């Protein structure tokens, strides 16, 4: 029993596995399966959004026009950048470069934070414009003119989906930030070696997935209004 514990501390291998390779394999399969569950989770709300967009096209296009496409595009680039830094962090761990691993993880966190900040600005804007469903729904002026033709009720439905989908995405980002912080703390203590860096890879995959969800969200919510 004690042997197992020492082995675990030394190599990062848990006692139920026979060798590090098996553990690595298991970790990878585990995270991929988890990502499949996330696809099903987001898939449900994406499908519902698609159905309502088909029913209420004018209202949803109106809602889409209100969103700030520059902020959305900026966020897209920010997230893509963060996926790059994340991948570089995994590579650094794989090559045993502790300082680079930590640096890239921190960069990823900064970019993730930037994304959340911009998202916060966008959410604030919705309150300013009074287009937050149920909590502050009283569109006026230009916003009202944009939303009224499609029907205000269905426009509210659009914004419910806007907040639900981006909100769930942001929640996943926040959890990701927590995971990144955990990795930074472990990496600084030298926990990762070229033989054992599975946690970095696992969080990396999670982060890439959250990025991909945004890659779908951005066109579906911001671009599909077609205003060019």
């Amino acid at each position: 029993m004690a042997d197992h514990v020492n082995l675990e501390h030394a190599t990062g291998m848990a006692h139920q596995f026979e060798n590090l390779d098996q553990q690595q394999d298991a970790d990878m399969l585990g995270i991929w399966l988890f990502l499949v569950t996330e696809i099903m989770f987001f898939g449900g709300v994406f499908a519902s959004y698609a159905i309502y967009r088909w029913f209420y096209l004018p209202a949803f296009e109106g809602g889409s026009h209100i969103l700030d496409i520059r902020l959305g595009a900026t966020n897209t680039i920010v997230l893509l950048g963060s996926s790059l830094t994340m991948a570089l962090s995994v590579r650094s761990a794989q090559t045993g470069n502790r300082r680079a691993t930590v640096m890239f993880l921190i960069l990823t966190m900064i970019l993730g934070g930037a994304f959340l900040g911009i998202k916060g600005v966008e959410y604030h804007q919705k309150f300013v414009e009074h287009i937050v469903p149920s909590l502050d729904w009283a569109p006026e002026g230009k916003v009202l003119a944009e939303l009224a033709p499609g029907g205000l009720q269905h426009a509210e439905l659009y914004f419910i989906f806007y907040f639900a989908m981006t909100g769930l995405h942001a929640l996943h980002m926040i959890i990701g930030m927590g995971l990144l912080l955990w990795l930074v703390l472990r990496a600084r203590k030298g926990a990762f070696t070229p033989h054992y860096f599975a946690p970095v890879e696992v969080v990396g995959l999670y982060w890439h997935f959250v990025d991909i969800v945004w890659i779908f969200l951005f066109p579906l919510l911001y671009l599909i209004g077609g205003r060019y």
Partner: protein
Amino acid sequence: MSTALLEPRVQAPRNYLNAEYGWKSWLFTLDHKRIALLYMVSITVFFLIGASFAALMRIQLLSPQGELVQPETYNKLFTLHGIVMIFFFLIPSIPAVLGNFLVPLMVGARDLAFPKLNLLSWYIYVVGGLFTLFAAIAGGVDTGWTFYTPYSSTYSNTQVTAVAVGVFITGFSSILTGLNFIVTIHKMRAPGLTWFRMPLFLWAMYATSLIMILGTPVLAITIFLLAIEHLFHVGIFSPALGGDPLLFQHLFWFYSHPAVYIMILPSMGVVSEIIACFSRKRIFGYRVVAFSSVAIAVLGFLVWGHHMFVTGQSVYAGLVFSLLSFLVAIPSAIKVFNWTSTLYKGSISYDAPMLYALGFIGLFTMGGLTGLFLASLATDVHLNGTYFIVAHFHYIMVGGAVMGYLGGMHFWWPKISGRLYPNGWAAFAAVIIFIGFNLTFFPQFVLGYLGMPRRYAFYPAEFQVLNVMSTAGASVLGVGYLIPLIYFIWSMRYGPVAPKNPWGATGLEWQTASPPTTENFAEIPVVTQEAYAYSEAEQEVNLG
């Protein structure tokens, strides 16, 4: 076999039960076997809660006017009965208790792939359960376990959000369990244990886990959207606010139909193990049974629309879902024929696990065949929303899944506890349960065709005789369930010590001590035989 009482601390060898003592060693354990026991206690508690609600319902239905409780209370009773039994008993039962205990043993590993996630899944389950219990105490929920909108989102003023949160949270317990099993079965099989040498219980756990990870997230997002609608009075599923109530039904049933296969596939796996052991024969058509499990899991995702035949959806959609619903019955039928054929020229013994397994085959056959009435569009129009549906799913869930769970508990109890239970009482209880079950639920088929709708707190007098019969049967069934509870607890202190392999069964789990040590195997075994090697294994298997 010695029946003398043993003092556990003096003579019992070190095993997972006595390796450590104290509440911390249980609540912070990473040992899959201890986690299985944590689940066992929790699901038993929830089963008793759910059964109490059922008892009150059946008493209410003794009289047509229904004078026991107010209709509003009755509506809360059937809602909570459904929610507790489905999400907190049936779905976890075999996977979280028997699966957690046996999957590592059967693959020849020391634990599951992710022991910490395993413990986390139990905590998640408990938290979800607490939310639901809170909802039950703080006023209850009266939407039906199906939560149809707009009633649940806009009209009901009961604890919808609390229960939604509870079910949402518990779903993650299911997902983590399934994830753990899939990775363990893929990556941790002992040397020599190829896919087609695995016991069929593992195939069943694998197929179940596929459904758990693919289906449960859809329930999660559906419940999430429902909770938003209820809390913020927005219109996702409520037409008065712009939404579509049928969208809710599609999303809900997309998970909840596969969920019924989560509830039955594990029992089928248990039955395969028991039939093989107590006929001393390899399961007839092993590969066919294995593939059928996976086929059921896959096809099960394609039939959800059969819950919506009378919603006014397109006739063509109805035809497609009807055809697929008929097709999903075929693999189950194939399994029943294969199990029955296993008995042919076997060497059959009548121990309690076998009685449960045989009872399962009979009752599952009946329940499954009554599904034909419901897959058939023209008859489903008449039967939907009536007691026929209630009878159909109870035949499968109780006559099938619960009997399978009890059979499995009786089969592996010596391994889990290191003790034997009195076989006479066990056989008696099995028979009582079988009889009580049929008395309870068979009359409900007749009630359904006569037209008595379900979820009625009171009913026209002409339905009373059959309702009284059903309640009488339920009291017999209740007694039947209490008996194993008593002797299992009794056996933990007073039961004869169990040998390694009391039933003479094949399978890696029977090669460990009863109960096993914490690490399961001193050395990882190497598998050289096919599963169910009963006829060749004359030397290896200890007949006890």
